[in-house]
């Protein structure tokens, strides 16, 4: 196969209302049309179109050579993706649930993440690992985890988590075009719940740029993925109590848009960090440390983390485990009660 690379921007196109899931499919379809190095594979992604439907239609349009089912082995999926990327393809490997990624951990952490560095830049590993993460679907331990922190802790990997359909498309396109391995984690709770306008043609959202989801002046709430709408609702409720909350959707955990975080905290003087992963050593711990290091003198109250509890993800009590609007509001209260 010869590499044609990425064609230049398509003609201005309109937009269409899509779910976050449809936007992800659209991103892959767009890039597969643009660049014949892009291949998509994983468990059930072919004829079935993925267990959530993210690859729906790709098998029909691009055939089995570019969209195929694999044997049931995450190690196999990621290991072969590494080989393909090293050789010159742009593989998109789907891991059916982030909870099932661990057999591939070695290939991700020891191989994909270090290929560029250990070869002195001779070999690179431009691949995307897409995987649904997070709770909210009554999936119990093994269909709900939010284990982004493991990957953020691995130099060499980029970690991207969209929260809106337009970002899902634009960030996925950027991830596919990126020269480094990207963990593209999809908030499955929003797959069908998040709906919005998405450009139908060329649409790229750069990796490493946060988004102000809601402007405010009294307190900054840092969040990503499925926690973004929860925080937006909390911000709305807080507004009704006379508090102006700024919600920052990080969009990219690695590399982090530190400037956006610091600018917002300097402006508001208060900071709440929200994530659904277990609290201890979660990504919010890193955010808290950065805020403390870089702008503690601006803070008018403690940095507060609102997170999942330090337990495995439960089934029946899931609704209490997941941070919700009330818990975010309680966190906001704490930053004022000082």
């Amino acid at each position, binding site marked *: 196969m010869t590499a044609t690379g990425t064609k230049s921007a398509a003609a201005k196109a309109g937009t269409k209302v899509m779910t976050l899931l449809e936007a992800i499919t659209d991103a892959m379809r767009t890039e597969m049309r643009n660049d014949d190095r892009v291949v998509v594979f994983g468990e059930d992604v072919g004829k*079935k179109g993925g267990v959530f439907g993210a690859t729906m239609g790709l098998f029909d349009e691009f055939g089995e050579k570019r969209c195929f089912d694999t044997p049931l*082995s995450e190690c196999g999926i990621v290991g072969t993706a590494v080989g393909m990327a090293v050789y010159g393809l742009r593989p998109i490997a789907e891991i059916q649930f982030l909870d099932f990624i661990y057999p591939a951990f070695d290939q991700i952490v020891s191989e994909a993440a270090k290929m560029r560095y250990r070869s002195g830049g001779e070999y690179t590993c431009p691949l995307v690992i897409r995987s649904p993460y997070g709770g909210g679907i009554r999936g119990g331990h093994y269909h709900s985890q939010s284990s982004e922190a493991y990957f953020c802790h691995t130099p060499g990997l980029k970690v991207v988590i969209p929260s809106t359909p337009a970002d899902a498309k634009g960030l996925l396109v950027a991830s596919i075009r990126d020269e480094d391995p990207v963990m593209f984690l999809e908030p499955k709770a929003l797959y069908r719940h998040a709906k919005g306008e998405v450009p139908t043609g060329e649409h790229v959202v750069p990796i490493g740029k946060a988004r102000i989801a809601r402007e405010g002046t009294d307190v900054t709430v840092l969040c990503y993925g499925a926690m973004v709408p929860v925080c937006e609702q909390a911000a709305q409720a807080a507004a009704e109590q006379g508090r102006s909350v700024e919600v920052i959707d990080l969009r990219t955990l690695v590399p982090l848009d530190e400037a956006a975080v610091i600018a917002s905290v300097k402006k508001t003087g208060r900071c709440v960090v929200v994530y659904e992963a277990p609290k*201890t050593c979660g990504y919010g711990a890193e955010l808290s440390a950065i805020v403390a290091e870089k702008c503690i003198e601006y803070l008018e109250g403690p940095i507060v983390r609102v997170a999942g509890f330090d337990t495995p993800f439960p089934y029946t009590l899931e609704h209490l485990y997941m941070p919700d609007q009330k818990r975010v509001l309680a966190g906001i209260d704490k930053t004022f009660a000082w």
Partner: protein
Amino acid sequence: MSLELLSILDQDGKAQKGKDPNLPPKELQKLYRLMVATRALDDRGLALQRQGRIGFYLQSTGQEASHLGAAYALKDSDWLFPAYRQPGILLLRSVPIEQIVCEWFGNEGDTSKGRQMPVHYSFRQANFVSISSPIGTQLTQAAGAGMAARIRGDDTVFMTFCGDGGTSSNDFHTGLNFAAVYKAPVVFVCENNGWAISVPSSKQTVSESMAIKAEAYGMPGVRVDGNDVLAVYRVCKEAVDRARKGEGPTLVETVTYRIASHSSSDDAARYRDAKEFEAWKKKDPIARFQQYLKHKKLWTEAFEQECLEGAKADIAAAVKAAEARPNPGPETMFDDVYMNPTPQLKEQRQELHELMQKGGVGADVGHFPL
């Protein structure tokens, strides 16, 4: 080299001469009763899911002979490291149906305290080790448990299950290798039901069978008709006996079919050929065994009624009792992470308690789509 597909019963339930394990009539009837009850349990589980009363269900329909025939070869003191498609073993091991159903509801009567999705059982009383979702992990664990029994000098045998998809997992290869190297008393049962969700077994491997993979690990591999309960029983009994004698592990491939969709969230009609499905439906393991019992004059209409209606009544009573039980209390979420909760867990439990006192916490959660 090619492995023969072992069978005893033909499609009309006639046993081949010299192969019938000649189980006593009472045992044959017990096996039949268990198969019928397992199907009734699965039917009820799916119905409850469809009615929105439980969140998820996964049936073993069509695989009753495969898992019950296998586990029937064990002693009660032997251990199981199951996958998620062997519910009949719980009935075989006399787990009260109400406890099974409590697991579906994830309520306070559930042995795993509502922590896992439906059908991920744990029953220590039945030597039935906690099921997890990640495919294949139990295979290596069974090898390790077998190694432990050898170290201790126990004569316990371990049976572990996986699907055709499971043979592609890292643990399948490692588990078989370790078990063989250490001559662990393990029977690996691969229920080849043709499908791993939407992926046909022909895409898992180009080996001519799953059983033949045993050769590479230096253990016997046997292929058996998984819809023939007597054949599965016989093959597994030989494997269990070998294991108990210290002769090491065996891989048994039961060739069967997943009659239902993968789970309550899947629709197999989207990717599966109706002809294939219809052909397998005709090979129903319960119907075939019923024919056999008829030839032996061990089956009557009255017996059938008693098996089916008895099972349905027991299940109905269990559902009624289970559904009335409350969910585990919020504080239980913090138990069993460790033997003793850490200071952080205690603090978080207190934090949740205080929030709940103020009222209103608890996010809306959706439905399981897979």
